[in-house]
């Protein structure tokens, strides 16, 4: 018999995407440089996984491996119940969109959007293909441009054509690498909704990679955060927001993100105190329990911008627990304001009401003294050596 002898996988399997133990190194100046270290991710059919991390984290390399454009050094990828190791890129059924538009310059908008439907293997009857293209061009609000050539389009319009070319396909996996990063804020909000609505009816897994942590929270059913090639955390947007697993995750999320204050843990009269220069805070409750689990003295205190309070400078002192600081800048945004406070070589961002920011005085109080107070909640302690969140449970 000539049947394949490969034993079926003992691990869970489903029609979605399963990547296990993906590692990859590139050689840089003769030295191997680890880009991905044992990344394991599953995306169920119909699920959208947002993959985020700072630039250079390894997101694009991971996407290229899934698409078959790179080979992993180790690990396996399964899609729709089939192992992809020996399947060439063109036969994986992966609809791919990279940040660069890569449009055919000699084809119109319609021609570009039709192109994947005319490829061998994906060929559709012309009427059906055109119907699908019209529907997607309509969704992306570029139908009126259908006869234009890419050269006559703005950057944002080109990006939408590339998106149309992706969405007309019926693949086994949608892979979007920074699909809307060239667009303005209003259009991004609109398109996130439209794309989500289009994908939510399908039973295909989607990966949406973006360096913008807030975009990841907005679009993902689940969010995976990678940093320096390692999977930092994977979970629902709520889990990631409420319980960031590391300081590296926390600094990607929020507008502005959590303030991360590097300092040391010391003991004073039996209590654990977090100290950074002039700033010190006696830890209680869950934070104190978390501090007991630190691997050393170094720790990072994460403080949410909307939890910080401030008082008039004359209220600074033991009674209020306020630390003297200076108003560095003050930016009103209409519905809330962001006040930047200088704690001495450390700028902390505070999200406050418009009235609270206006009360700081003329010219936003910039340059004037103020008292900074730590909140009762909204703080997380991270281990200084590993950066991982310390649990106070």
């Amino acid at each position: 018999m000539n049947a394949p002898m490969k034993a079926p996988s003992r691990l869970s399997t489903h029609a979605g995407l399963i990547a296990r133990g993906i590692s990859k190194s590139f050689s840089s100046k003769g030295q191997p440089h680890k880009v991905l270290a044992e990344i394991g991710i599953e995306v169920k059919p119909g699920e959208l996984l947002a993959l985020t991390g700072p630039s250079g984290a390894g997101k694009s390399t991971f996407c290229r491996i899934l698409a078959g454009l790179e080979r992993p050094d180790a690990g396996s990828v399964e899609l729709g119940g089939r192992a992809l190791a020996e399947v060439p890129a063109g036969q994986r059924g992966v609809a791919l969109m990279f940040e660069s538009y890569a449009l055919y310059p000699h084809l119109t908008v319609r021609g570009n959007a039709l192109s994947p439907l005319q490829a061998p293997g994906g060929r559709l009857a012309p009427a059906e293909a055109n119907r699908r293209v019209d529907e997607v061009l309509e969704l992306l609000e570029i139908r009126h441009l259908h006869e234009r050539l890419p050269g006559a389009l703005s950057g944002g319009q080109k990006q939408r054509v590339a998106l149309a070319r992706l969405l007309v396909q019926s693949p086994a996996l949608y892979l979007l690498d920074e699909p809307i990063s060239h667009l303005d804020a209003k259009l991004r909000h609109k398109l996130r909704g439209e794309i989500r609505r289009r994908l939510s009816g399908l039973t295909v897994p989607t990966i949406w990679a973006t360096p913008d942590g807030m975009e990841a929270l907005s679009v993902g059913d689940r969010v995976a955060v990678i940093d320096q090639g390692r999977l930092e955390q994977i979970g629902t947007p709520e889990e990631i927001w409420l319980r960031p697993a590391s300081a590296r995750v926390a600094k990607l999320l929020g507008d502005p993100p959590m303030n991360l204050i590097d300092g040391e843990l010391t003991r004073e009269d039996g209590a654990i105190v977090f100290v950074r220069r002039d700033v010190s805070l006696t830890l209680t409750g869950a934070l104190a329990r978390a501090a007991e689990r630190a691997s050393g003295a170094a720790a990072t205190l994460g403080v949410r911008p909307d939890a910080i309070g401030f008082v008039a400078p004359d209220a600074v002192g033991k009674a209020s627990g306020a630390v003297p600081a200076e108003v560095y800048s003050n930016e009103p945004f209409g519905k809330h304001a962001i006040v930047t406070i200088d704690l001495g070589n450390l700028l902390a961002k505070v999200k406050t009401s418009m009235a609270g920011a206006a009360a700081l005085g003329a010219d936003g109080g910039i340059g004037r003294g103020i008292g900074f107070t730590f909140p009762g909640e909204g703080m997380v302690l991270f281990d200084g050596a590993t950066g991982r969140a310390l649990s106070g449970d």
Partner: protein
Amino acid sequence: MSSIAFESVFKRYGEVDAVRELNLACAAGEMLALLGPSGCGKSTTLKMAAGIESVSSGEIWFGDKPVSRLAPGERNIAMVFEDYALYPNMTVWENVGFPLKVRGITGQPASQRIGEVLQLLGLRQMADQPVRGLSGGAMQRVSIGRALVRDPEVILFDEPLSHLDADQKVQLRAEIKRLQKLRQVTSILVTHDQTEAIAMADRVAVMNHGVLQQVGAPQDLYERPANLFVANFIGEPPMNLMKAAYAGNRIVGEGWEVTLGTARRARLADGAIVAGIRPEHVKVLPPDGAGDAGGAARGVITYREPRGDADVLTVALDAAGGTGGRLVAEIAGPTSWRAGDKVSVGLDVDRLLVFDAVSEKNLEVAP
């Protein structure tokens, strides 16, 4: 420090008015933002102030001095450009000192000024590095240093943040505002980004198609936009704008309805309107909770965007014979609302704005 005033300024290119009858003043020590989409005339206005573009008619005043016939070099302005425009092979120190050098200021007076500016911008450590290879944020700091070093009467910022990545943008935005306030240098900021304009400027002038739409403090523009263009341009997520009819004391839209208080009725006449309400002034409640919130409508959540401390919900309103309009609500989060949930929606009537459907003007803002 000088004030700047544009008096009936026109800029014509053939048949086209790039800027039409602009009357606008920036007080001494103030930061004024010129905000609008590309092609609105904001950059042309800045270039006329700089003297790089001529004025077709009208006059520009720096204090009590007309400047429209003066060459750029005679106006004592400094510019900060979007692409930094630095000398890549010169050091940070040399770039910042360049305007002094060309004016023949050297030696101790020059060193002292340069040192002071570098200190202010946190560039002391990198004074001897060539600017090539610096981050975008550091380069733009150098360019701001070059503008500040010779105490100009006016600094003109032309899209200073648009080439920076998100982190650097947030950082430098706060920093430019701080410097402007501490130095009290009269400044005009050109930007297409409403966030930058309202965060940084004392007052914002919104332009479209060469015409000034509204000028005011950021909060005025946010709360009392003069027309639909300004209402839609300022705020993120954008204001909900919904076609409706005003009759008697009621506003009736597609699947929603509210009643105005007596004070406002006197200002309005019956007719076709566009109602505007910001997402943070829309309440989302369980389906039976409409009554106590001045509830205006019922509907279904079609899309939920978690934004960390807020959820942005899109609600498709129920209407007789199908679906009515869509409303976007921004509420404190994370919430347990999900797409598909039935809800009732409350509109904060005091925050609801009324625009004329034809003229697109806010009917309750004096022109």
